[in-house]
């Protein structure tokens, strides 16, 4: 059973519009929230500013977290971000107990709103992908899975390959991974829309890495990560692209596999 004061306090913490009205007529707003005169008098004993401070603390902390986790995407949204965050907290807010997961939850909520802003040209078409990319960088670094140790087994056509457990394939329309470390909203780079597949992983030095993949390499890696043998992965990748496996493709695949092992994308042959 939760006290009426706690429920009302929770509303004050979350609803910025309510706080704006609270500043003007605190007793009326707190009465609206179901608080009697005695409770209102006590809560307001040191001024309404104390209640407003709590709303500011909660909203500022979450806003700071978004800016810390996605500085470039947040710099694009600039003055509109606080308003979005206020609306988000009032509507649903975060549900994760881990502050580091909050920006991802915000993105799920903001995505349709930003899609509208992109459709009307208010925001660059790559805003959402940039936000995702910045979150992905951090998600890779803290991925609970270990990035794995090199396999002692010899590579063979009938064997599969062991993938670094943190590896994932990202499908993007824009090369946001190539954007500079800081963005000037007044002179944004122009990125062409296309079809892009990136391998993303945490390397042996605990760094997040991203590498664009050619179509055949993406098809090959996808199959290897799914557990296919090297033979099936090679034939499958070629078939998917309407190619015939030949010596040139085999040679290219050998070089690529060696590079992936060097880069810790693959750990070697499966046992």
């Amino acid at each position, binding site marked *: *059973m*939760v*006290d009426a*004061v*706690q*429920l009302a*306090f*929770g*509303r004050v*913490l*979350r609803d910025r519009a309510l706080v704006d009205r609270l500043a003007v007529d605190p007793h009326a707003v707190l009465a609206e929230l179901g608080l009697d005169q*005695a*409770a209102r008098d*006590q*809560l307001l*004993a*040191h*001024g309404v*500013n*104390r*209640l*407003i*401070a*709590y709303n*500011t*603390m*909660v909203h500022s*902390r*979450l806003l700071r*977290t978004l800016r810390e986790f996605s500085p470039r995407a947040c710099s694009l949204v600039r003055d509109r971000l606080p308003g979005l965050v206020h609306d988000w*907290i009032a509507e*649903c*807010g*975060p*549900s*994760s*107990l*881990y*502050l*580091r997961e*909050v920006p991802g939850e915000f993105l799920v909520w903001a995505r349709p709103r930003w899609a509208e802003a992109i459709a009307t040209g208010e925001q660059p078409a790559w805003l959402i992908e940039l936000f995702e990319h910045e979150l992905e960088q951090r998600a890779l*670094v*803290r*991925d*609970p*899975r*270990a990035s794995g140790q090199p396999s002692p087994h010899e590579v063979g056509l009938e064997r599969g390959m062991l993938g670094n457990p943190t590896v994932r394939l990202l499908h993007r329309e824009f090369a946001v991974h190539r954007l500079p470390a800081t963005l000037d909203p007044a002179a944004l780079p122009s990125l062409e829309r296309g079809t892009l597949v990136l391998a993303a992983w*945490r390397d042996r030095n*605990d760094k997040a890495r991203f590498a664009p993949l050619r179509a055949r390499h993406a098809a090959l890696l996808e199959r290897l990560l799914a557990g296919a043998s090297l033979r099936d992965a090679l034939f499958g990748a070629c078939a998917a692209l309407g190619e015939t496996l030949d010596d040139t493709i085999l040679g290219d695949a050998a070089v690529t596999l060696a590079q992936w092992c060097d880069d810790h994308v693959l750990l070697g042959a499966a046992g």
Partner: protein
Amino acid sequence: MTTMRDRLYDRATPTGVGLGLRGVLLDAILAGEADGKLAFLEVCPENYMHRGGKLPRQFEQIAERIPIITHGLMLSLGSADPFDDEYLRELGQFVARHNTTWHSDHLCFSGHAGAVLHDLLPLPMTRATVVHVVERIARAQDKIGKPLAIENISYYVPMPGELAHEGEFVGEVCERADCGLLLDVNNIYVNAKNFGLDAFELLRGYPLDRVVQMHVAGHTRWDRFDMWLDDHGATAEPIVHAMMQWVVERTGPLPVLLERDQSIPSLAELLDEVAALQSSYELALARWREPSQEFRHG
């Protein structure tokens, strides 16, 4: 009179002054800069649970060298929202792995109607709240598998309720839940400053027999709202040392933590502050050892 310390402490319980482990300090601590200078490190499990990579690996290396006490942020003991069972399971595993005697979290709520607000929010000081929190403490202890200690928080709005003051509220919860108290003397001092009260009078209202650990920190002024903010962003004031001493004179040896979360200086500077706090602590301990009944409140 048997105190919570008598019941919880064992040979491995560290006493003396420790430091809150923060990410920016990991490299220096791993390099050995704090070796022999800390009684313990206090760690927030949420920073290391549910994640992989370098950070938890560094932490595990440190935990092999320096005693660890766990202190969490996200139990939300006063919330009406249900516990996250997966979180409690992982937390239980974490505290078991580090062999802590108790786990502490705050007497507050953080969740409202399904939203997790990531702040330590004050509870109404009512008997109904006490009943609610006591029931949640029992369930949390059961799931985590360790005794809990609750920390008194700083708050900025006077919370309505029939209990006369924060010490009485905290005392009721500790007594009915039969749990420990992590006494944060800086929080009491901040509350005293923000509400125009006497810090020692507030302190005297707390149940010292329940205290198993203490927190010491600094705070800063938030001019925009004309109040003091418990942000752990400054060196602890002399009066906070004196409050810590007042407690230690009456309880005897305790783990005392120095917290710093904002404007974090170098580890060397923090260790100087730890050393100063340790000197204050030892003076108080010497007074406790003197056979003066005046100080022996349990």
